[in-house]
């Protein structure tokens, strides 16, 4: 069948429109997949969002979907939609590197739970996206392979660590992607790339098959061009999984619940601690503009206080580094992954393989984490980190007694130049100042485009809610974007 729809039209279509065309058979999964692969071939040279493109596997999946559709079989909600996965999510038979030399040749023998779910829903996995090595970073410059560039300005970073996933979605190479978060790694790059990113309640999406960084913080989550795309991916990915002992047994909400809400009477908390020095003027203005819009729709704006906000970054890095040092002890040069060439003795296998296999930032975190857990320092650092976490969680519980959601910026600034922070770890860590608290408290939060600043760079609004409030966050994001045109604009790299 020759399609009446041109290539660029497929690429620009949002996920729901595309799904409708697939269901009505105006488009085949093969055509849509080929279009995505072609766009990657044409555009990704500039952006470097992908570590691995799995064209053959994608075409095979598309063929299966088209055959099933021709036979009239029931297909999942994402049937025929091309998506990308952050390369720390295991894919059976497809190299999964975590953007690290130490896993440069690692081919998983199983699919992550979310990959099984996406495949069962008919999604076509076209490739694996770049990240900061082991998801440790906020710019995707710490990838062992290459940095990813922001589609809105190729001299700038996409944010991180899920910068490959957000850049791929922003550049319209795929219609959706999965990223992962430990301290803001979906929301911050979503903000910098002008797309929607959702961090779910801890336990909402199974971590089985996600390469571990900070186990009490890690969550997989969706990236979409719009809230409705993120909602479709969220619904496809969530659900109980016996293979993850922290998986929540919560039902999957309907798509309607994820897209519709009445804003009248909704109480929106604005934390005074988030609008202090350090936030750029244009970000503050855009976020306050969004708050005014919600107010104009009948929502009530209430000032709230999250008094321990200023301790968030310190608390987060103590805990995340400690957990990283423990999780990354498994890379021993024996069972899988890289082994140094000249490792002639047993200890050399460990020392040389890890020293050559890990990048500088990963080594820094392993050592700082090891230090904070070591005898004599545990009480001074790790133990205090866990107690600070209690105080931060308590702040949110108190705030949610008064309000339905909290709104604030996702990032204090728009995308920064490549190289601007890469040699200054503390400056890089401070990029996460508005995002880490939701990870520490285990609660969901979404970032959505709410404006553009100087240089036509996107600005993100963050909406944070209590446990399991993902449908409300998505619906509130959907309401805003339906009345604005910040989503779905074409980035500079494509024009």
């Amino acid at each position, binding site marked *: 069948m020759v399609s009446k729809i041109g290539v660029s039209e497929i690429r620009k279509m949002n996920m729901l429109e595309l799904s409708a065309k697939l269901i009505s058979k105006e488009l085949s999964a093969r055509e849509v997949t080929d279009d995505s692969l072609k766009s990657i071939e044409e555009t990704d040279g500039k952006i470097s969002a992908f570590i691995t493109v799995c064209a053959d596997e994608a075409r095979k999946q598309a063929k299966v979907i088209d055959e099933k559709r021709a036979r009239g079989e029931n297909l999942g909600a994402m049937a025929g939609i091309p998506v990308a996965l952050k390369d720390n999510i295991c894919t059976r038979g497809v190299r999964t590197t975590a953007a690290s030399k130490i896993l440069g040749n690692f081919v998983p023998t199983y699919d992550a739970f979310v990959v099984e779910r996406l495949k069962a829903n008919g999604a076509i996995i076209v490739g694996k996206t770049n990240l900061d090595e082991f998801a440790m970073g906020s710019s995707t410059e710490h990838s062992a392979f290459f940095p990813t560039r922001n589609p809105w300005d190729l001299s700038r970073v996409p944010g991180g660590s899920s910068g490959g996933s957000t850049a791929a979605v922003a550049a319209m190479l795929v219609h959706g992607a999965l990223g992962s978060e430990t301290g803001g790694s979906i929301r911050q790059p979503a903000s910098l790339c002008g797309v929607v990113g959702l961090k779910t309640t801890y*336990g909402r999406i199974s971590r089985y098959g996600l390469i571990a960084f900070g186990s009490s913080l890690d969550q997989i989550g969706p990236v979409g061009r719009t809230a409705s795309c993120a909602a479709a991916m969220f619904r496809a990915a969530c659900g109980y999984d*016996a293979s993850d002992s922290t998986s929540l047994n919560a039902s999957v909400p309907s798509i309607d619940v994820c897209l519709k809400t009445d804003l009248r009477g909704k109480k929106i908390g604005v934390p005074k601690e988030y609008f202090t020095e350090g936030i750029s003027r244009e970000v503050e203005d855009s976020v306050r503009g969004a708050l005014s819009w919600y107010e104009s729709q009948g929502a009530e704006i209430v000032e709230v206080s999250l008094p321990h906000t200023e301790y968030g970054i310190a608390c987060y*890095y103590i805990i995340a580094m400690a957990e990283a040092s423990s999780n990354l002890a498994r890379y021993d040069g*024996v069972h*899988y992954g890289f082994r140094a060439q000249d490792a002639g003795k047993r200890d050399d296998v460990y020392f040389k393989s890890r020293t050559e296999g890990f990048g500088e930032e990963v080594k820094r975190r392993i050592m700082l984490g090891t230090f904070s857990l070591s005898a004599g320092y545990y009480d001074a650092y790790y133990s205090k980190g866990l*107690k600070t*976490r209690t105080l931060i969680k308590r702040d949110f519980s108190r705030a949610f007694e008064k309000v339905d959601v909290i709104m604030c910026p996702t990032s204090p600034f728009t995308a920064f130049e490549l190289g601007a922070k890469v040699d200054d770890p503390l400056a890089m860590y401070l990029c996460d100042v508005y995002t880490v608290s939701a990870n520490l408290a285990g609660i969901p939060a979404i970032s959505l485009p709410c404006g553009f600043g100087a240089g036509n760079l996107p600005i993100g609004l963050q909406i944070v809610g209590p*446990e399991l409030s993902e449908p409300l966050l998505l619906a509130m994001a959907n309401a805003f974007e339906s009345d604005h045109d910040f989503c779905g604009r074409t980035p500079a790299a494509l024009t």
Partner: protein
Amino acid sequence: MELTQELLRKIATLSRLEIAEEDEPLIIEKFRQVLGYVEKVNQLDFTGVEPTVYAVDTKSVMREDSLREPLPRAEVLANAPSRDEAFFLVPKVLD
């Protein structure tokens, strides 16, 4: 807290990482910046505050024992840097 060269070397050994001697001053400087920052938590009063390891309530999950196929040995071993048909190979451990 004073991060000394000796302490850095101890941490590196515990982490099974090697550090070149000429890199030590810069590593120490960057570690001091980060530690200096995270020591901010010392300003807080933790009287009566319990630690939070997991933010969401978690319980031990019990399930019946059941037989399942293990991962295929050949595929698992294919990822090993050194192997034979059945084993992971490592340099001699005992002299």
